[in-house]
């Protein structure tokens, strides 16, 4: 008797599955049915509690008819590894048609073993779609399950989560959570059944409700703080977030309740970030006169609040040599010109001795306003902070862009920072050229006010080194001009 003869002519078979995710059972039945040559259109698969397909609900076909049994020597059923892998996963989908679809594909594979390779085939595409949806759902389960800690009476800790999957994936993903949290007591409650792990054995139980899961966990406040802090409001991309974390998951994720406020506040925070940065992108002034005018109104750093005047650099607009000091002092502020106070007088003397013509050089300061502390009637000089120098660097750079000096002489550490953007040690940097990015050379030496503070031999020693630095600059300027 051949297998075909066992199948009653025109009969329609119904297979009742024991569980919606029982792939092994389906495989067993499908193997037997294929061996008995039951064609796909004469077969219905019914899930527990499900209606199966249309045929299964209609009169004469209701109920499970006795299924045919294949002969012992029936030819084996074959399927590629790839099909098995896909089918095992696709069977977890909640689509009631899935088992019928898989059976039809298995049926076709018997006559065309390579049918799975035809990616343009509708059945192949549908199976791949199911597989993809299940993989995504599993991946989201791995990602979005949120455990809450429950203190048990004996002092141990139990971690309980509530999750709502779209497909029948709970049992299939138990392994992932066991491997990850092997030494933790945990339970995952879902409307499709629950998992419980006590560190040794896995237990399953029936569907649960959301109320069965614990509410709240003190660590969630920390996690929410983290979530809000790691978000960069300047990069708002809500679409990208929604694509990967659709709203349906939000209700079970503690951090998601922050999202509306984070989005609403993002623009204000971004504006705040930019405003706190204190300066906007602006055009560089086109002439030295424009700089002179613009620095009067500059309020980029707190020094400008001291109510002093801005002191602009002076000298030829095409000077080869630019001399940069720290900031205007008391006298400079009153007169509105750089290097006219005691330091300026000393500088003039030293320049003259070295043979440098001050009127041929462009003389300016790293910081344009005088920073001081009021002591009675006296205004005591205060060093500008690194940040103030960095802020004012923009003006100094604007001057450099216009004058294009080929050699810049920085007097003191503040001036050097204004040109290099970092603090250097004068003793290490002096006496040799440092290349600036526009090709100019930077030479660094001490500020003349340093010499004014020294006495005796120290004064003479440092005076001589200063003179030597200036002499080297003089020689180099001559070289550059020559």
């Amino acid at each position, binding site marked *: 008797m051949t297998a075909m003869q066992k199948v009653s002519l025109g009969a329609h078979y119904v297979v009742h599955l024991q569980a919606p995710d029982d792939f092994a059972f389906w495989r067993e039945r499908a193997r037997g049915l294929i061996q008995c040559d039951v064609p796909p259109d004469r077969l219905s698969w019914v899930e527990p509690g499900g209606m199966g397909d249309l045929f299964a609900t209609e009169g004469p076909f209701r109920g499970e008819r006795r299924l045919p049994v294949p002969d012992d020597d029936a030819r084996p059923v074959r399927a590629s590894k790839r099909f098995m892998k896909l089918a095992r996963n696709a069977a977890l989908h909640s689509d009631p048609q899935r088992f019928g679809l898989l059976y039809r594909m298995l049926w076709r594979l018997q006559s065309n073993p390579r049918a799975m390779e035809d990616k343009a085939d509708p059945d192949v595409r549908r199976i791949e779609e199911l597989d993809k949806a299940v993989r995504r759902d599993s991946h989201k389960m791995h990602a979005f399950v949120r455990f809450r800690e429950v203190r048990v009476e004996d002092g141990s800790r139990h971690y309980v989560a509530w999750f709502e999957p779209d497909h029948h994936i709970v049992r299939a993903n138990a392994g992932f959570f066991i491997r990850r949290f092997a030494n933790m007591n945990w339970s995952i409650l879902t409307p499709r059944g629950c998992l419980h792990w006590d560190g040794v054995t896995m237990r399953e139980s029936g569907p649960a409700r959301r109320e069965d899961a614990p509410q709240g966990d003190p660590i969630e*406040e920390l996690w929410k703080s983290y979530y809000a802090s790691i978000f960069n409001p300047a990069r708002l991309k809500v679409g990208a977030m929604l694509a*990967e974390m659709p709203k349906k998951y939000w209700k079970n994720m503690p951090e998601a309740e922050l999202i509306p406020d984070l989005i609403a506040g993002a623009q204000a925070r971004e504006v705040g970030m930019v405003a706190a940065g204190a300066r906007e992108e602006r055009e560089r002034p086109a002439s030295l006169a424009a700089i002179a005018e613009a620095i009067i109104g500059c309020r980029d750093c707190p020094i400008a609040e001291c109510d002093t005047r801005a002191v602009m650099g002076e000298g030829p607009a095409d000077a080869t040599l630019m001399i940069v000091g720290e900031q205007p002092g008391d006298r400079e502020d009153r007169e509105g010109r750089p290097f006219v106070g005691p330091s300026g007088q000393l500088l003039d003397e030293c320049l003259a001795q070295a043979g440098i013509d001050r009127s041929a050089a462009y003389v300016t300061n790293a910081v344009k306003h005088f920073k001081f502390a009021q002591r009675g009637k006296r205004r005591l000089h205060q060093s500008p902070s690194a940040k103030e120098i960095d802020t004012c660097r923009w003006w100094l750079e604007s001057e450099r862009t216009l004058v294009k000096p080929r050699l810049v002489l920085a007097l003191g550490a503040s001036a050097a920072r204004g040109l290099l953007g970092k603090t250097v040690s004068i003793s290490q940097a002096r006496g040799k050229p440092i290349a600036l990015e526009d090709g100019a050379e930077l030479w660094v030496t001490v500020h003349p006010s340093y010499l004014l503070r020294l006495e005796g031999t120290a004064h003479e020693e440092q005076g001589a080194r200063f003179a030597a630095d200036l002499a080297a600059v003089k020689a180099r300027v001559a070289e550059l001009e020559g």
Partner: protein
Amino acid sequence: MVQKITTQTLRQKLEILADAAKYDASCASSGTVKKNSLGGKGIGSTEGMGICHAYAPDGRCISLLKILLTNHCIFDCHYCINRKSSNVRRARFSPQEVAELTLNFYRRNYIEGLFLSSGIIKSSNHTMEQLVECARILREEHDFRGYIHLKTIPEADPELIHQAGFHADRVSINVELPTTSGLIRLAPDKDERQIEGAMGKTKARIIQAQDERKRFRHAPRFAPAGQSTQMIVGADNASDADIVGKASSLYNAFGLRRVYYSAFSPIPDASAVLPLKRPPLMREHRLYQSDWLMRFYGYAPREVQQATEKDGNLPLDIDPKLAWALKFREQFPVDVNRASKEQLLRVPGLGTTAVARIVKARRHRTLRLDDVAKLTQSIAKVRPFMVALDWRPTMLTDRADLRALLAPKQEQLELF
């Protein structure tokens, strides 16, 4: 000052130190060896594929607890919110606190592991010691088997970097800026040679450890997820062509797993030398696309550079692959039924998955336009560049306005 720090709560510290870490683009937890906690004392597993446990409204994935150990720093890099001259609030975690926080988050399935970086305090060696100590506590005291990514400090003692790689899945050193002049200008305390020297040493260690594993099964692993780096885009005036060139030389020289691009975003208390404007997110996206072209589509760096416009930047309105195809129209149309895989990968609109499907499907049937439509995301983009059994794009590749046809439409704003 010290008083102020000791009175900060754990939550305040977390806020400061997570905020300070958000400018690092990487949050990947993929590409490491499989580990799990079965038979161990602690928790944790890595199964190859990374998992994003949440997404922030900036669209970026939150996979790791990404924090700084401290945001105190003796360096003064202009683009960095934590530089010495910045006025941000400062905080510091102890290694114990970092380990506790990581485990507390991990037990609740919030994260895949830890991404720890730090400002430089006292000295490079001291800082590196503290970073390694965090990883050691997690691995040795708590038998933590999740993912750890450690930022290493190029100036630190090689022995400390070795220990970092022994505990961590991935180590990284940021090259920060694509050009040497940018680095000198914006990160005056950093040194390109030192950064690249450290990357070279790390590469050698990784190869050595892989080699030892082949001979001795129990040889310790060294950073099994390799090393990566990050470049800031838009803080200096490097063009996309410069950046692509730099990235490809880094991939070649140091065997990097990834080069991350981070669009420079305005930071509070910014240094005056930086542009304060919206981060160039689209530019960053185009650079990632070009990165993919080099890594998965067989484009040479030179070819990606050919796709750039006159100013050396990639066009922002169309992707770099389409830009390349429009410049080299003589290579198209490509016959989907005959062309090699390499040629198919150059067709705009065909991704690696679509190409693999086409190559398989065409063994079974001669593909028509409809078939190709089923195998790809959008046939409209592919159509002008391909030939199928019933489709030939007459004149399309010669049309002068092809770019306008394919570029996404500009949206006309409504009058308000």
